[in-house]
């Protein structure tokens, strides 16, 4: 599908992750300076220049497994630690939130406004760090350059690509259930009222024209919904009123972050499709982004700085329980690749990559493997 989707997926999921971490850090009463450090470190890693360069290259979406590895590493880019169960829950919440936002975007292009909402909020987290602020602004610029000129048709393709990525994910999220934006069967509520997409007229009118283009008849019909025209278009500038609320922070200290694990899910066959599909690079699916994150050095402050563990659940017992009872179909097989300094491992991987190279691959699909080899040569 569209090869321009990964940056939007990564930035929006990252934004949701920060909302959740911020809420949990406060709920768990982590001291302010530590909490700020964690968020600063993660944001700084996310917007690292080399990382962004790689992210913005036109490429196919990563698999769900590969993308999950990226966020595992990102969440551990600082002094904070998360147990597997908490990491699973964090990822569930992130993905369901962004799935919801994509689904409810009035126009396909509005996914860019959702991204800007996330970036605006991220800038709020790092107000005191001008260097990181600058990095975020640079990314903003890049987004505008690349996406600003895309047609409605290209955004439609991006939207379809994102929805295919999120297909069959039906984790129930308490905050969504409470707000009645998700049904108890895990499906999102699609309202038939409210503001229309920018550029769409209120349904209900049939106009007939003659050969000269003059309107000769106007008939109304009952369309079944209750819509109003959008008051104004959201701003795509660096600063501006986005109008759209999707992508803004829905968590606060008083709205705890909970999930319901959807036990019996309807399409086991469909969900596990990805993990059983043969893929010669599965184990070594280097995940260039994950490797880049792993290779980044976070400056540790002088003196002992003990790390701490963040819990996405209310108690440690709950976290343990969640790990034990997680339905099998929702396992994320996290690839733990210590792809940082081991030169020998890199050479071995390069050799394996070489063995899998198919001779008459068309130019396009060879790009992933070629990039990896090139990166390894540079190390």
């Amino acid at each position, binding site marked *: *599908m569209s090869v321009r989707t990964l940056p939007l997926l990564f930035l929006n999921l990252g934004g949701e992750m920060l909302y959740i971490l911020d809420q949990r850090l406060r709920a768990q009463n982590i001291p302010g300076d530590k909490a700020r450090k964690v968020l600063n470190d993660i944001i700084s890693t996310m917007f690292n220049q080399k990382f962004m360069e790689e992210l913005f290259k036109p490429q196919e979406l990563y698999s769900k497994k590969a993308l999950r590895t990226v966020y595992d590493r990102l969440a551990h880019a600082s002094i904070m630690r998360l147990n597997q169960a908490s990491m699973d829950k964090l990822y569930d919440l992130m993905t369901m939130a962004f799935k919801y936002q994509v689904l409810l975007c009035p126009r396909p292009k509005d996914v860019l406004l959702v991204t800007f909402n996330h970036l605006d909020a991220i800038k709020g987290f790092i107000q005191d760090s001008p260097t990181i602020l600058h990095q975020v602004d640079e990314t903003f610029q890049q987004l505008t350059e690349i996406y600003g000129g895309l047609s409605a048709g290209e955004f439609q393709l991006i939207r379809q690509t994102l929805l295919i990525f999120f*297909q069959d994910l039906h984790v129930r999220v308490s905050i969504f259930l409470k707000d009645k934006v998700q049904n108890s069967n895990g499906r999102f509520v699609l309202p038939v009222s409210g503001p229309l*997409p920018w550029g769409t007229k209120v*349904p209900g009118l049939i106009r007939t*024209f*003659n050969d000269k283009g003059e309107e000769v008849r106007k008939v109304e019909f*009952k369309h079944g919904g209750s819509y109003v025209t959008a008051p104004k278009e959201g701003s795509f500038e660096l600063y501006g009123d986005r109008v759209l609320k999707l992508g803004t922070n829905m968590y606060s200290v008083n709205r705890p972050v909970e999930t319901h694990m959807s036990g019996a899910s309807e399409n086991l066959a*469909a969900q596990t499709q990805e993990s059983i599909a043969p893929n010669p690079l599965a184990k070594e699916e280097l995940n260039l982004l994950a490797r880049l994150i792993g290779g980044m050095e976070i400056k540790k402050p002088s003196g002992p700085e003990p790390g701490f563990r963040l819990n996405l659940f209310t108690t440690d017992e709950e976290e343990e329980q969640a790990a034990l009872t997680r339905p099998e179909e929702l396992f994320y097989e996290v690839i733990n690749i210590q792809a940082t300094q081991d030169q020998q491992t890199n050479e071995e991987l390069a050799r394996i990559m070489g063995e899998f190279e198919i001779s008459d691959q068309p130019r*396009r699909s060879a*790009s992933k493997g070629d990039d990896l080899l090139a990166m390894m040569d540079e190390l």
Partner: protein
Amino acid sequence: MFRRERSIPLRGSAAALCNNLSVLQLPVRSLTHFGVVHGPSAQLLSAAPEGVPLAQRQLQAKEGAGVSPPLITQVHWCVLPFRVLLVLTSHRGIQMYESDGSVMVYWHALDAGDASLVQAVFARGIAASGHFICVGMWSGRVLVFDIPAKGPNIVLSEELAGHQTPVTDIATEPAQGQLDCKPLENRDCVADMVTADDSGLLCVWQSGPEFKLLTRIPGFGVPCPSVQLWQGTIAAGYGNGQVRLYEASTGTLHVQIDAHARAICALDLAPEVGKLLSAAEDTFVHIWKLSRRPEGGYIEVEHCHGECVPDTQVCGARFCDPSGSSFAVTGYDLAEILRFSSM
């Protein structure tokens, strides 16, 4: 008034594509075939009246080279004078099967050619025109395949240039329509195919040993994901929720309907009775009656029925019988085909 009938379960949910439902009506055998794209696979199933599922089959996109399994963009039955073929388009190529999907009779690999690195490469848009099958491409080109009465000797006969952006859908005059066509001034200029693309541009063609471009109808900033052709009238559904009807031979706009609150994803025709079905991401399906005024001769539209499919982003919709008294719907993430019939 329509009522919900029994749904037909699917092995995999429907993907968020447009025109994601194909129906082959076989009234002689009291069977209906359904085709839905899940992602890297498509599901075919046949059902008896009352929606009782009988047989099902899954087809995969032919791999070709590449790391990830390719995605299917569309599955569609093509009814030709002497045979029915099932066509499947993907990001790798075009696969043609016998109508039950049992045997692949033809494979055409896409040539990425001079696609830039930022362009997605795929085939999309499938229609039968006489003994040809036309398939659209990401580049805007339309491939015309010459189909023999039987056997696998399928030949690419022409490549039509008319579009600059990816083709979304292709429509041809249903066989009956050609016979009932009102007399046109210039009988030699019968518009019998229309192609649409992501920019909203429509190209109107005359089929033949060589296809001829008759006229172009420009877009207005939104894609046209779905298009139909009936008795010289083009019905086009757009990304802003509008349905527009044009005179095919001249490209003149005759009707503009503010039909939906979100992008339209599918249109279908019941040609015997002039019924049009529109479905969109706003969860609604609408049925319209098309007719030609005796004086003046231009087309008129009347709204017949609106159906809300709650909390479902519809991605495909088709009539299930020639009189348009029943229809089926697929939705993103939904692992069933919803059926409605009039009371």
